[in-house]
């Protein structure tokens, strides 16, 4: 028997009692803590047992990676026919953009990555110029993608796939934020005419589905233009998407504006700042900071809503998918196609929402009460 004597205060730390640590304890407290809990755990396990193996089989184990049509796929296994996706992969990424010009898309994506880094990464070198670059990026990108002025022009009807999603999404995000801020300020304005106009606009846009606005863009927007002018379909869609998401952003930013104490504005006035100065230096920096999570959520919503352009016959990934499904060799493989597109959207949207969460936490620490 160990009879060591310890001087008081020098007793070595003992291991925690058995049963309060380790996997067994974790299982007991998280899965089997009460009879009801045990029943729930067993039911969930049974459901997973019934659901997961067939899904894994279909997705991985029985799936087919090579083949030229559906029959060849079916001959090799009864799982997913990924050969279809493999064959059309480039189409899903670049759409019908001319093959010898696809370097321009690649270059645009690189430039986009730099612009995003300049906006989001606070240790970006020479960040101030980075911001200016990010502001100029949409125009550089438009020149690169559409061509003209020295580059071989590409009609926007050739745009498609993930590239089109990015074009619509990034344009929507870049242009709807300033417009949304203006609308939110207008809604809070003391001038009735401006306020009423902004409220009507915001409530109208928020009251109707995006798809009806896109139909308007595709069928009847040209009526409202001066006679004889024609307007690119993609351009019309972009305008509608920007207006749509600006109305939603305006409401999010209004929340931020309303959360600011009245004293902030009064203090700015007392310092002799005029309206735009107080908005720029006092109101907006605080209001935008509060509304960042909401803004990112609206952006995610906008990004997901870009899929609706497939309904008015634009070739986004869903449009490409629909068209591929119409070919007789691959008829009926809709699950594979849409699951593939779903995974793409999941990765990008999940990434954005994680970033928003990180930003929220980072900004929160400065305000801990």
């Amino acid at each position: 028997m160990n009879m060591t004597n310890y001087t008081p205060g020098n007793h070595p730390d003992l291991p925690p009692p058995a049963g309060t640590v380790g996997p067994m304890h974790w299982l007991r407290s998280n899965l089997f803590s009460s009879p009801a809990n045990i029943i729930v755990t067993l039911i969930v396990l049974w459901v997973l047992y019934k659901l997961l193996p067939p899904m894994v089989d279909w997705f991985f184990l029985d799936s087919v990676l090579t083949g030229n049509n559906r029959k060849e796929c079916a001959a090799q296994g009864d799982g997913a026919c990924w050969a279809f996706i493999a064959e059309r992969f480039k189409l899903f990424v670049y759409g019908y953009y001319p093959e010898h010009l696809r370097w321009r898309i690649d270059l645009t994506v690189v430039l986009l990555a730099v612009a995003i880094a300049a906006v989001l990464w606070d240790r970006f070198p020479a960040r101030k110029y980075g911001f200016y670059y990010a502001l100029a990026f949409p125009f550089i990108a438009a020149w690169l993608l559409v061509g003209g002025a020295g580059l071989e022009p590409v009609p926007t009807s050739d745009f498609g796939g993930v590239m089109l999603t990015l074009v619509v999404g990034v344009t929507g995000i870049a242009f709807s934020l300033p417009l949304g801020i203006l609308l939110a300020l207008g809604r809070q304005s003391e001038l009735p005419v401006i306020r009423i106009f902004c409220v009507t606009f915001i409530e109208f846009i928020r009251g109707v589905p995006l798809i009806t606005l896109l139909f308007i863009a595709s069928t009847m927007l040209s009526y409202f233009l001066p006679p004889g002018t024609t307007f690119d379909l993609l351009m019309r869609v972009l305008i509608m998407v920007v207006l749509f998401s600006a109305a939603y952003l305006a409401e999010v930013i209004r929340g931020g504006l309303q959360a600011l104490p009245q004293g902030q504005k009064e203090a700015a006035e007392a310092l002799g700042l005029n309206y735009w100065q107080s908005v720029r230096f006092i109101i907006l920096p605080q209001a935008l900071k509060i509304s960042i999570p909401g803004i990112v959520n609206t952006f995610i919503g906008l990004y997901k809503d870009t899929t609706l352009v497939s309904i008015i016959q634009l070739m986004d990934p869903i449009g490409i998918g629909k068209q591929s499904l119409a070919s007789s060799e691959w008829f009926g493989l809709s699950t594979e196609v849409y699951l593939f597109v779903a995974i793409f959207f999941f990765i990008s949207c999940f990434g954005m929402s994680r970033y928003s969460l990180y930003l929220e936490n980072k900004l929160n620490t400065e305000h801990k009460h």
Partner: protein
Amino acid sequence: MTSNTTSSNRISKLWNDKDSRSVILQIVSFAIILGFFAFVINNAVINMAEQGKDINFTFLFDTASYDINQTLIAYDSRSTHFMAGLVGLLNTLLIAVLGIILATILGFILGVMRLSNNWLTQKLAYVYIEYMRNVPVLLHILLIYGVIVHSMPKTKQAFNFNDTFFLSNRGLMSPTGTFETGMWVVLGTFVVGILFSFWFRAYAKRRQDSTGKTYPVNLITFGAVIVAPVLIYFVIGSPITWEVPALKGFNFKGGMVIRPEFIALLFALALYTAAFIGEIVRGGILAISHGQTEASYALGMKPSRTLSLVVIPQALRVIIPPLTSQYLNLTKNSSLAIAIGYMDITATIGGISLNQTGREMESFAIVLTIYLILSLVISSIMNWYNNRIKLVSR
């Protein structure tokens, strides 16, 4: 020279004075807005005159001459565009109402699962919510529709549920019931039960306020609304004749078919919106400080009464406003029906009727007005409810 300075002085005075400046700004912005609309409308008038079109709603009473695959009211291809629009509107409403009910139930379950102390349940709800929220709803619709149409068995090998429901790639065949006269008695009992339970609730509350005595209100409501009509239904002798579908040759005879478009749209919208509602419910419950629960226990309330009288009423105040916007989203997203050919208002008036008559302006005016009215109705109902449950400060 002097007159020049005074006049510029006067202008700068006008500009520096807050009231006159706001008047100037408003007149200018009003003129710009008016000018813009005048320009746009003028363009439209010229363009439409060039194509020989006018604004005229009489096309609504012309024959539609197209078929609609799911109609809640009598409709055939000889009916008018107006009737087609009405059928579309009812289909939109059907999806919206059923979707909202389904999404709310599922959403509350998900919200509670996210807060469960069972690790497996919590993570399952988390994975589900993240998957649903981060994939566009259009993809959910197309995926579910594709699974039904391409992966379900053909009519002959339909999944058979107890010889009453059959699931195949043509949809879900289900029985239809025809009411006999006795059924009106059952329905009457049901209505009386609802009215009675409203009165009884008010009465029980008044009595509790004055004497402190309570009734088992929920039990009595359940008895009046559910048990009594069911009892009478069987006492009278089941006055509904059920017509069960049966496989005859290549197709089912009898009963009715719930079309794959309807199933796909309903489930996609409900499952998608439920994920958002789940997060809202979770946030609402977490927003109630733990002190409320502890105080309620300290007063000697049972956990069930703590939940129903302390936590949920307060959580609802946080939950209702974002829930309203989810209901609005679901209703607006129902317009995606057009992607799979479910004939809602966008697909009838804003789709086929528009293409047949070429009346874009009128059709879109109708469709947009209907969606605006729907949005207005949903938000007023929810605002009314929100006002009823909000904190009364004296």
